């Protein structure tokens, strides 16, 4: 297992190098200098610009430029944002907590909803309730996340006034106080529900089918023969076996959450990584764009790796080597 994990981690390196070359080429193909944030925009004398270009290495051959960029990148120097004039690293770090909060809340919501619905459906398959849940899940699976988000804002934020429709925190509350954290939770809840509902459907159906399958196994019959109450059989014996495969979904969710976050954060104007990425594209903020693309690619790769490894951890019958 350890050997496999290390091999897979090492296997990520060529992939990351390839992606970094693609990202660099893409940034070079876009119009304008990709690192021009270093140049003082108020000083427009040609000599100054030429001198700075030489100093910043824009006149070097492309491979040298790539090498300089990637060396800095590996050491955590992502360059300076052309838009905000602050290091990209700080800019990203400022937004990470927001996205993390959104992602974790969305995951918690997914798990809670999937558990309630999946356990109900698994215990009473082919009943009215089960069919209703299946139908609901089918619609949730088909409805695009941005349409769901727009409807959610319209209904819950504007018509019912339950949630705020934009931002991550109220302006007036004091940072660090109890109200501050409540306000953040209040802001994150609606986008998180929309983001979390996307993957709830597949979790629920998986859990339902697994519970039905497990309830026909011998250990359930033994437990029943010994007189264990049905409630205990379902909530302890079966659930414990059915939870394990669900863990593997976590890795794939990583990638789904990244893509989902870009859309959801933009619609809810929630200041996170996804919104920062879209803004960096529209405002041609290349250093930020390159750093974020690399970061998101890395996270996707990492998520897929996590899924594969978890697969082997929870089910020892699958041989990874």
């Amino acid at each position: 297992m350890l050997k496999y994990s290390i091999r897979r981690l090492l296997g990520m390196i060529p992939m990351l190098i390839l992606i970094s070359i693609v990202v660099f080429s893409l940034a070079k193909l876009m119009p304008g200098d990709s690192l021009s944030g270093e140049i003082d925009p108020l000083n427009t004398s040609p000599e100054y610009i030429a001198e700075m270009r030489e100093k910043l290495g824009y006149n070097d051959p492309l491979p040298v430029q790539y090498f300089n960029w990637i060396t800095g990148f590996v050491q955590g120097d992502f360059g300076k944002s052309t838009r905000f004039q602050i290091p990209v690293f700080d800019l990203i770090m400022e937004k990470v907590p927001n996205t993390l909060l959104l992602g974790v809340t969305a995951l918690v919501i997914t798990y809670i909803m999937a558990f309630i619905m999946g356990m109900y459906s698994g215990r009473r398959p082919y009943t009215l309730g089960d069919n209703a849940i299946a139908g609901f899940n089918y619609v949730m699976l088909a409805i695009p996340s941005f349409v769901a988000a727009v409807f959610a804002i319209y209904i819950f934020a504007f018509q019912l006034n339950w949630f705020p429709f934009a931002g991550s925190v109220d302006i007036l509350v004091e940072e660090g106080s109890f109200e501050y954290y409540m306000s953040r939770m209040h802001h994150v809840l609606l986008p998180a529900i929309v983001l979390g509902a996307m993957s709830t459907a597949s979790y629920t159906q998986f859990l339902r089918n697994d519970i039905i399958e497990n309830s026909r196994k011998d250990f359930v019959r033994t437990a029943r023969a010994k007189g264990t109450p049905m409630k205990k059989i379902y909530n302890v014996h079966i659930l414990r076996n059915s939870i394990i495969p669900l863990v593997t979904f976590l890795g794939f969710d990583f990638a789904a959450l990244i893509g989902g976050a870009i859309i959801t954060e933009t619609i809810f104007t929630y200041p996170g990584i996804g919104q920062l990425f879209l803004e960096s594209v529209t405002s041609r903020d290349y250093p930020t764009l390159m750093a974020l693309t690399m970061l998101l690619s890395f996270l996707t790769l990492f998520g897929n790796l996590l899924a594969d490894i978890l697969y082997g951890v929870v089910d020892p019958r699958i041989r990874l080597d």
Partner: protein
Amino acid sequence: MASSTTITQQKKPERSLSPWQIARRKFVRNKLAMISSCFIVLVTLMSVSAPFIAPVLSPLPDISKVNISAMNIEPNGEHLLGTDKSGRDVLTRLFYGGRISLLVGFSATLIVITLGTVVGALAGFFGGFIDSILMRFTDFVLNFPFLVFVIVLNTILYGIVDGLWVLIMVIGALSWGGVARLVRSKVLAEKENEYILAALSIGCSPFKVITKHLLPNVISTIIVQGTLIFATMIVIESALSYLGFGVPQATPSWGNMLSSANEPDVLQGKPWIWMPPAIIITLTILSINFIGEGLKDALNPKSLR
């Protein structure tokens, strides 16, 4: 059965049904899939004939003109679905938008299916070195964060080629990985059969074996997958257009129409502008998914009915 044998003996022996006929019968009996098919056909017909029916249904058939005198009209007898903030008839735009959304979805699906089938079939059939090279490449494409790269690529190519086709090519070129993997696994299983060995032993070229013998046996999987991808492509198109990175703003597509919901004022107070595209996108996706499920059921020889 016993009593009917005397009658059937006099009749000509009936030909048994071909697999396609069986599949068609199963599909026609599936109510949900049939209703969905009718809906999709209706939407397609309306979109295709938009230039002809638009003048009949609305007083403002020209969608390229801004009309200051008819801004933000609520739905009434004259404008069945009202007008948007530039005074354009929502219903007319919905028809024209369908043209773009369906065209993008269909073309991108075609690219995805073609690329995926070619790569998957080659990798699965030849195996060995070709397989590992092609599959490494597929992994590479699959591991890209899709949305991120579509947006960046689209920004670069924008202006060089016509906006619509950039979008189609970019989303097509970045999403064939899943199909390639699926086709490869199917081909790997199928090529172990004896008829492939027989075809090879009488000297059929690899090209002929793949096109004549392997693909017809994989085609049902590809059709089902293609249906589901069609739905995904429509979602991607409208999501990108909604975010402002898809079809150019001047061209109406369902996603572009929905993007007017970005303004809180429109979202809160003028639901007739953004609700029609939102509803039609959802219904279209739902219908295509039902058709896909129906096809999967109908083309599966193990399912009874």
